[in-house]
C-alpha cells in the first residue's frame, strides 16, 4: 500500500497532455506505435478528426502520425468485476443487467473476456466473441468475500493478448482493497507497460450507513450492511489513478439503472476514441518513452497514456518513472 498516494496526483489534461502509450510489439525499433486517444471538448467527445489535427512527440521528438483510425479496429473488452460480499441482492442484479446490455452492444468483430474477483480471482472466459456464452456466464456469477481489486486489475493487464485489437478494461469495483497481494504502486507501474485502456466504474450512493457486518463463519467477508457501498476515498483515488495512467476515464454509476447506462456510456466513449499510429524516428527503441499529444489549431482536451516502455524481453526488471 505504501507509496500509492504518490502516484495519484498525476498531471491532468491540459493543452499539452502527457500520455502513456505502450507497445508490447515494440521489439525491433522500427515497429509502429499506437496511441489510444480520447479527445473531448467541454466534456463531450470530439469526432471527425484527421491525422493532421494531432501533434505527437515521443521523448520530446516530433513524430509523424501516419494513421488515425476510429472504430475500425476490433475491440477486446476485459470485464474485471468486483463480486465481493457487498455486491449482493439488488446490486448484483443490476450488475448482471448492465453486463447483459454491454454484451448486446458489442460489434460482431468484438470479443470480451470475463474476470471476477472477491478475494479470489476467477477467469470465466478468455476473449471470446460468443455472446451466448458470455450471457450465460454472466447469469451464473455469484458474490461473496473480500476485495482483491488490485490483484484483479493486474490480472486484466497481464491477460492482454498480443493481437491487433484495442483492449478496454472495464474495471468495476465498489470498495477498498482488502485482500490483494500486489500493491497499488506495483500495478500502476504494470499499467504503464501495457496499452490497455482502463475505464474504472464505481457506485455513488447516498444515505450510506457504514455499519460493519461480520460473519463469524466467513471471516473473509467484512462488509458494510445494506446497499451497494460507494468506494471510499482511497479506493476512488486508486481507481482514478488506473484511469489516468492508462488514458481511460473514471465513471460513476448513479441511480436506478445507472450501472447499465454507465457501462454503455463507457463503450460508446471508447468507440469514439482515436488510435494514432506512428513509427518512432530519432529515438531509441529501448527504455521509457514519454509521449505528448496535442491538438493543432483547435480546442479540446486530449487524454491518453503518458508514455510507453520499449521492452527487451529478459532484459531485467524495469520500472517506469513515477
Amino acid at each position: 500500500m505504501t507509496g500509492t498516494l504518490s502516484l495519484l496526483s498525476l498531471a491532468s489534461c491540459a493543452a499539452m497532455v502527457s500520455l502513456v502509450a505502450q507497445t508490447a510489439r515494440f521489439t525491433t525499433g522500427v515497429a509502429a506505435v499506437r496511441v489510444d486517444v480520447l479527445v473531448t471538448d467541454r466534456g463531450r467527445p470530439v469526432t471527425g478528426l484527421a491525422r493532421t489535427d494531432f501533434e505527437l512527440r515521443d521523448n520530446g521528438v516530433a513524430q509523424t502520425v501516419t494513421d488515425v483510425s476510429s472504430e475500425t479496429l476490433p475491440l477486446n473488452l476485459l470485464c474485471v468485476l468486483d463480486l465481493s460480499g457487498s455486491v449482493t441482492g439488488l446490486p448484483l442484479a443490476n450488475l448482471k443487467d448492465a453486463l447483459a446490455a454491454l454484451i448486446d452492444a458489442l460489434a460482431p468483430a468484438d470479443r470480451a473476456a470475463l474476470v471476477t474477483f472477491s478475494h479470489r480471482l476467477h477467469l470465466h472466459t478468455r476473449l471470446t466473441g460468443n455472446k451466448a456464452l458470455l450471457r450465460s456466464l454472466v447469469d451464473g456469477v455469484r458474490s461473496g468475500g473480500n476485495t482483491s481489486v488490485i490483484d484483479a486489475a493486474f490480472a486484466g493487464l497481464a491477460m492482454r493478448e498480443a493481437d491487433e485489437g484495442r483492449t478496454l478494461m472495464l474495471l468495476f469495483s465498489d470498495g477498498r482493497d482488502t485482500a490483494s497481494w500486489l500493491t497499488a504502486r506495483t500495478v500502476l507501474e504494470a499499467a504503464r507497460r501495457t496499452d490497455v485502456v482502463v475505464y474504472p466504474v464505481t457506485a455513488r450512493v447516498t444515505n450510506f450507513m457504514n455499519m460493519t457486518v461480520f460473519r463469524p463463519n466467513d471471516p473473509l467477508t467484512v462488509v458494510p450492511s445494506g446497499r451497494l457501498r460507494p468506494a471510499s476515498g482511497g479506493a476512488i483515488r486508486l481507481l482514478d489513478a488506473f484511469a489516468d495512467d492508462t488514458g481511460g476515464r473514471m465513471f460513476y454509476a448513479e441511480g436506478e439503472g445507472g450501472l447499465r447506462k454507465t457501462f454503455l456510456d463507457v463503450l460508446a466513449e471508447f468507440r469514439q476514441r482515436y488510435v494514432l499510429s506512428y513509427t518512432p524516428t530519432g529515438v531509441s527503441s529501448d527504455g521509457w518513452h514519454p509521449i505528448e499529444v496535442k491538438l493543432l489549431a483547435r480546442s479540446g482536451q486530449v487524454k491518453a497514456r503518458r508514455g510507453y516502455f520499449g521492452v527487451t524481453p529478459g532484459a531485467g526488471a524495469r520500472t517506469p518513472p513515477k
Partner: protein
Amino acid sequence: MMKGAGVLGSFGGRPLACAIGLLVFCHVPPTAGRQDARPRYADLLAAYKTGDVDGAVSGVMRLTSSGEGTKTLADWVANRRRSKDVVSLELALMLHTEAAILGFGESAALGLGGWLDQLRAVRRIFVALRALAPRSAFVRNWHLLWESVVQGAGLSPISLTADYLPMALEDFPNDAEVLLAAGCRYEWLWWIGSANPRRLPSGGSSSDKQLRTAVDLLRRSRTADPAAVVTRLRLGRVLFLLDDFDRAEPELRPLTVATVEPAWRYLGLLFLGELLEHRGETAAADAAYESAIGLVPVDQSARVAAAQLAHKDGRRAEAAEDIGRALDRPETGLDPWWLYLRGQWWQFEDRLRTARAMVRR
C-alpha cells in the same frame, strides 16, 4: 520441525472449514415468540455451562438489552466480586463475550445499541474478574481470544473493543503469545491504516510508528519463545515494510526450509521473494515465488507475484501464463496470505474451544 508447525496445521492447505475452524456456535437470533418470556440469568449461565450456546446467547441478548437486565447484571457482578466467585464470573464473561461476538454479526438482530450493551457487559464482568484473578490462565486465554476477534473481524478500535490489549501487556509482560498478539495488532493497524487512514484512532495515515512498535513487541515475543515460527514470520514481514531488508532476511530465510509447515513456508517464501524483488535480485525472487507455488492448494498470491515479476521483466507470455494459472485456483480453500491479513484470527477457534472448556470444567 520448528515450533509452531502443529498450530499451523489447523489451517495450512485445508479448506475454509478446517482452515480457520468451522465455528462451533451457529447463533440463531431471538424469535418474536420467545421474547415474551424473559429468561433468568442463572438459567442462562447454566445453559451455557452445559453446552446450550445458542439458547444461552440468544437469551442473554434479550436480557441485557433491557434496562432492568443491565441493573440486574450490575448487581450480580457486584455480588460475585464481593464473594470472590471467580468461576461464575468466568462463565458470565464467556457468555457475554459470545453474545458480543455475534452482536455485530449479521445474524444478530441487536443493532449497534445491542452490541454496545454486550460490550459493556463484557467490560463490567472483565473488570471484576481481573480484580480477583488478573493473571489467571483463563484471563490470559480470554485476552488472546478477544484479540483474535478484534483483528479477525476488523473491529474499529474503539475503547470497548481495543483497550484490553494494554491490560494484557500489563498482566502478561513477558508472555510470548500475548506479545505476538500485540505485535500483530500494530502490524494490523498499520495495514488497515494504509488501506483506509480514517479508521485509525489518530485519524492520520498509516505510520511507521506502528510498525516500529510492532517490531519491538515481536522481538520481545521472539526472545520469550525463539522457536515460534509465526513470530519470526511477522517480524520479518514488518522489518521488510520498514525497508530494513538486512534484518528482515535472517528472520525469513529459516522459514523457507522444507521442515517448516507448508502454509508458513509459503508465506515465508512469498515475503522473501518480495524482499529480493525490492533488492533487484530478480532471479532469486522468481525462484522464491516459484518455490511457494504448489505448497498450498490455493496459492493465488504466489502466482500473482510471479506473474507480476515476469511482467516487469518483460516476459509477457510467461506473465500471461502465470496469471492464467492464478485465475484457475480451486473454489474452496484459502490462500494463507488472506488469513495473514486477518491478524490473529487463525487462533480464534482454538482460543474459543479452550475458553469454553475452562468454564465447563
